């Protein structure tokens, strides 16, 4: 009787671990669907003629200085 009980217990433990493993396996996606892309190379555009990204809202080809019209954006 004792031997039978030990056998049943051993089988139960074996199946139990297998069932748990299957459930855990089912919870995970079978394939990785996320598409990984390489990060783009940073691009920096120099806005003014001093090589910076601009000052006081001066656009490309202009820069901020005190000139004939006072403080204003002037062409490079």
């Amino acid at each position: 009787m004792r031997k039978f009980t030990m056998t049943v217990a051993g089988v139960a433990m074996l199946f139990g671990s297998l069932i748990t493993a299957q459930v855990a396996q089912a919870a995970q996606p079978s394939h990785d669907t996320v598409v990984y892309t390489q990060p783009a190379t940073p691009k920096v555009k120099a806005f003014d003629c001093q090589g910076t990204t601009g000052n006081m809202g001066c656009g490309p080809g202009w820069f901020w200085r005190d000139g004939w019209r006072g403080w204003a954006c002037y062409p490079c």
Partner: protein
Amino acid sequence: MLRMTRARAVIAAGFLTIGGMMAGMGSAAAQIDFGTLPVNPNEVTDSTAYVAAAPIQNPQGQPGIEASYSHRDGSRTVTDTILVLGSPEAASAAMGEARGQVSSQVVGTPQVAPVGSGGSIVAGTSPDGTRSIAVLTFTEGSAFTTVEFEGPANDPVPVDLVTEYGQKQAAAIRDALVAA
């Protein structure tokens, strides 16, 4: 000092012509407050960049005014000289004489300017090439005006600013002459 000498040389040429016309000068010049005529560059540029010097009334004995404005950085000046003569013909004659002198003071090519009557701009450099100079001349009725812009050789005054200034100056003269 160089600027003053050059400006006066240009204006002096006009004086030779208008000297004999003074007797025929109308009453308009006598009624105009010349001090109200010059346009401050700060009004045109919407800035506080320019500081006005004390104006010269009736420069070299001629009816009119000379006003000078210096940029706060000390590198630019605007000299505005307005002569109110006896007639439009006298103003035109004075302008013709003055332009003959401008060509020897500024190395540049004259170009037509939409300012007053017969407006012209000579933009270039001083004969020695050390300064940028633009001279605007025009008449408005019986008034002859010379505006000189002097600055660094590598930073000449924009022509559109010269034109804008001149148009505002011509309008101020026109309004004053009409009111006189």
